[in-house]
């Protein structure tokens, strides 16, 4: 998992089967110093409670779908937690 900052929301009314009810957020991936790294991406919200501005951690690839209530859905990035505190050397 990696750190990411939620920078926006996304709404799509026509979606692939399985994506109904899945909350989608725009996230900016961060490096280990919490600085932006790479291009923003769209993540499904596995916590259902994340919102813009929050520091979260995301899981990619096959494991992303496993972070959602329905596990056989077409997603490749999902938020798995909202960071309260982190101390990085």
């Amino acid at each position: 998992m990696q750190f990411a900052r939620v920078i926006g929301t996304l709404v799509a009314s026509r979606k692939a089967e399985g994506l109904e009810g899945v909350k989608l957020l725009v996230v900016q991936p961060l490096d280990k110093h919490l600085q932006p790294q790479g291009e923003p991406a769209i993540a499904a919200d596995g916590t259902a409670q994340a919102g813009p501005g929050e520091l979260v951690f995301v899981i990619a690839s096959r494991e992303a779908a496993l972070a959602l209530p329905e596990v056989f859905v077409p997603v490749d990035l999902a938020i798995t937690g909202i960071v309260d505190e982190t101390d990085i050397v």
Partner: protein
Amino acid sequence: MYIGRVSGTVVATIKNELFESRKLLVVERLDLNGHATPKYDIAVDMVQAGVGDVVLVLDEGNSARQIVGREPLGAIRAVVVGIVDEVTVGNAALDLEALRVFPNRWTSNPGGEP
């Protein structure tokens, strides 16, 4: 698997239920010369590792789920599976003590003077 150095911890109240009562560590990936690379993972700790430890990290979903007993479903991939005592590449051993870094935590003696 790769060799990494624990560089921090993550505390989260709202998280996937799989991570409840498990410790999450920030592990920076090291190359075989012991240099930090830009890559890192937030990994689940299974060996009571701490900040500064040089660790062995598994980054594969099925093995990770097996280790935490959550097959076949579980949103987990990176797991700290060992604390490294020694690494030798060719004839050269990595100086693990030199790799240890310690967190800049509160201390009653910030100057470090006796």
